[in-house]
């Protein structure tokens, strides 16, 4: 039994099939890349895993349990954390309060939640911004806050949805280090990203999809040299 597995995952919005018969599995401690051109269904896959949309058919297994059909908050409790491509900071809360709210996922104790939140914010190198209000953060920090908040729920699997988009090259380099650090702490990661340098650098394996269907999978060099992938991104001669 794999750590995480989707079986024939399919999602139809009316007549449009956004995700079509997608099967993949992830091992513990792996960084798994999900790539594809705009509109290919990457974010939809995340929304299916975290149950923002019900799946049309197929199944999702996580640590030996079928998790499709559970509500979103329950999936978080099961140990799958996620970030949002369009960041969702709790605007009228401080950075610390944002992360504390997440930490309450595993404890009802104020002090424990606060300690845990401070610890996570140190891990994410945001310890100087504990008392900043979330709405005052730059986009780089907002993306980092998304990650910190997901980490504070103590996930075993983390879904990162374009956490590098819109960041400066410097911030991207720091982001890559942070993601490695997260993996080294024993958390498996599925990463959706458009910046190929980041993806190629980080991932153990990559799945490339287009029109909701798998077109290639393998190690970063294999996928980068795959004819179907190049065509999907650049078109045919």
């Amino acid at each position, binding site marked *: 039994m794999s750590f995480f597995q989707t079986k024939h995952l399919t999602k139809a919005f009316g007549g449009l099939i956004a995700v079509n018969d997608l099967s993949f599995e992830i091992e513990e401690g792996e960084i798994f890349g999900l790539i594809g051109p705009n509109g290919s269904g990457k974010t939809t896959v995340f929304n299916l895993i*975290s149950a*923002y949309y019900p799946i049309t058919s197929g199944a999702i297994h996580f640590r030996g349990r079928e998790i499709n059909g559970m*509500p*979103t*908050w*329950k999936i*978080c*409790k099961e140990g799958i*954390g*996620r970030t*949002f491509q369009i960041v*969702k*900071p*709790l*605007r*009228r*809360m401080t950075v610390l*309060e944002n992360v*504390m*709210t*997440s930490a*309450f*996922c595993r404890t*009802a104790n*104020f002090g424990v*939640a606060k300690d845990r939140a401070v610890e996570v914010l140190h891990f994410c190198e945001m310890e100087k911004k504990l008392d900043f209000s979330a*709405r005052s953060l730059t986009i780089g920090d907002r993306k980092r806050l998304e990650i910190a*908040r*997901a980490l504070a*729920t103590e996930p075993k699997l983390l879904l990162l949805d374009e956490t590098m988009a819109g960041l400066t090259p410097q911030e991207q380099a720091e982001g890559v280090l942070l993601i490695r650090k997260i993996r080294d702490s024993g958390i498996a990661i599925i990463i959706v990203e458009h910046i190929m340098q980041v993806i190629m650098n980080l991932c153990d394996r990559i799945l490339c999809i287009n029109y909701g269907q798998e077109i290639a999978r393998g190690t970063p060099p294999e996928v980068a040299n795959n004819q179907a992938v190049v065509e999907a991104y650049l078109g045919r001669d």
Partner: protein
Amino acid sequence: MKHRPALTALGVLAVLAIFPLVISSDYYRHIVIIALMWVVIGSSWNLLAGYTGQISFGHAIFFGVGAYSAGICTTKLGISAWWGMLLGGPLAMLSGLLLGWICFRLRGSYFNLATLAIGEVFRQVAIFWRDLTDGMQGILIITTFRSKVIYYFLALGLAALCVFTISRIMKSKWGFYFIAIREDQDAAEAMGISSFRYKSLSLAVSSFFTGLAGAFYMNYMGFIDPEVVFSLYFISIMAILVAIIGGAGTIWGPAVGAFIMVLLHELFRSSFFGYAPKWVSSTHALAFGLLVILAIRFMANGVVGDLPRIFNLWTRKEPIPPVEEGSGL
């Protein structure tokens, strides 16, 4: 000067406790009793709307259910209406959970409209279910005490209990979850928060205290009818005004708002204690409307939420910052 909320609270409580012992006029005591009752209702509304982001136009439901629980104790069960102080809260909470079960699947304005509609349903039921409520005839009971002082301290106790409970909730896991749901329900769900469960908890506490206030009203006033206690304007809308004028999403806002609104209401009702022409008393709805427009334009976060701005406006020491999105709605 260091800000000490607990000390401020004790100071306010002390002043309010001394008030009826110093002021012997039953008229002024009555006004403060009603204001204290509105502290309870406004704070309860604020927990659900100001903190949890679920703006209810139906708080008259809980007030009415509380009031009628007390009244029906006497008219149908033949026991003291004071039993309503025990029954009113839980029964209002039950109707709250029913409302939540129906309405929490809706978001935003759809939720608001659903609460408005269900509020009207309750009013109609109270009018037409004559066997239980005596319909428009209302319920008249003989009040227990002639002295207002006992009612005064009861109202003060209720208000203090309500504000204290809510301030404690807001410093706990529940409070963090409530605000998270207000700020972004999708993000909250991704953080492991069952938005339905925590919205229901917020509504349960909110409706419980509003029901208590209703049961108190029956015992204090001695008369209720559906148009009074299930009133959209005099209860549901007033609850919103109290919290918004005072400062939604703050602990003290609704308490301050309750005193402002009750005093204003009394000023207009009495044509400024008879100093203004009589027709002024019929303009109070208009005046409240204007007040809301002014409040939203100049202090969208209420008196408490915009206190620093108002203070700057007064002293003109610092440049006046624009109205900022604060802790309110």
